[in-house]
């Protein structure tokens, strides 16, 4: 087994198989910019499956369903491992959910979620190409147009 290019952690989570260009988006949607936990990450790492990939390790953190769903938006093929005492105690393949709330904006500027203080709600109508239909304006937002919504 080859050496890890990103150091192992004692307790926490490892998000692996993130597309190399999605690293910072995943960091942002999980609000990792604002926490004080130790974080190590790498990108443009070689991957036999993906060509290149990114990886994020966060100490002393766990992820609930809502946060796993957030990862799915930018890294639908990622794996999340929970680590305790340097051992993987649980490993989840990310699954794209049927519905998604908050975190990203509706691409339609006339949508009520962009005009009033209303949290976005989407039905995911294509889980492969990632197409989201707004529950409100019923317009479709595609992966290329995903913008992270603060707060």
């Amino acid at each position: 087994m080859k050496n890890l290019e990103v150091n192992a952690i004692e307790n926490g989570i490892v998000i692996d198989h993130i597309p190399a260009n999605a690293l910072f988006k995943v960091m942002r949607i999980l609000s990792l910019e604002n926490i004080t936990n130790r974080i190590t990450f790498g990108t443009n790492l070689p991957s036999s499956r993906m060509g290149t990939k990114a990886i994020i390790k966060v100490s002393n953190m766990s992820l609930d369903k809502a946060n796993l769903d957030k990862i799915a938006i930018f890294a639908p093929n990622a794996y999340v491992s929970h680590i305790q005492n340097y051992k993987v105690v649980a490993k989840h393949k990310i699954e794209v959910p049927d519905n998604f709330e908050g975190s990203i904006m509706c691409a339609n500027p006339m949508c009520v979620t962009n005009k009033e203080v209303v949290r976005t709600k989407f039905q995911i109508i294509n889980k492969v190409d990632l197409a989201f239909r707004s529950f409100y304006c019923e317009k479709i937002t595609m992966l290329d147009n995903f913008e992270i919504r603060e707060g």
Partner: protein
Amino acid sequence: MSNKHLVSIGDFTKEEILKIMELASFFEQNKSERLLQGKVIASLFFEPSTRTRLSFETAINRLGGRVIGFSDSGNTSVSKGETLHDTIKMVSGYADMIVMRHPVEGAARYASEVSMVPVVNAGDGSNQHPSQTLLDLYSIIKTQGTLQDRHIMMVGDLKYGRTVHSLIHAMSHFGVKFTFVAPEELSLPDEYKMYLKENSVEFTETTDFMEQINECDIIYMTRVQRERFSDLMEYERVKNTYILRSQMLKDTKDNLKILHPLPRVNEIDKDVDDSPKAYYFEQAANGVYARMAIITYLLGVK
């Protein structure tokens, strides 16, 4: 909240659509039934509309209800910066039902989450206008005797026309066949074609108005709007391509009826108005019965 709303045509099942057809027919026979005696209905038009507002308010009056509301948000607290949330919350404390039109897409869905009483969407931007769809369906069933197995030709702006999209959705319950006639720039978006394929609905697309005109039962005309074109040369080129004239109707089926959500500009020539196949003015009149049906159904009084 257990209130029943009508925000999108998809909120109604096939059975509910048929129920509305039945009620609309009843109200056409019984134009003044005082089923809303003692009820107050809010008619909130955040943007102006003539036909839809008058038709809803006529429906309420014919049912013996009272109307409160506004036809323009200009002189209301909305212009002072009140949020949609607060306006709806307040009005839903006054009235038994809210009928609303709003320029923002999804406004009615959001209102239905906030409101304590049923909400009827009378148009939310370019999104949904379900009462129009139900009156279109009522016009089809009235002139054809059935909604089943009709061949419908839709002409004009199929890209942005919300009435077109909702009618496609609703008619998919009834073994329909579609012909879509539009310039390439205004052709039906892929998501609707995908929807039709998933639901095994037969359709063809063409730029030739005459290709299937003699086979269809309904021609649904829409307005090609200048502001939809990025290239004005292209607009000038196509604007006169999709005009229906009376001589085009000479070999069409006897049961053919021509529908149009109105207002029309020039896409139906005036000489068609005298044809027994022209139905767009009767279609507008059907709006009152369809809306009487929607209101009484949602309030559970009929």
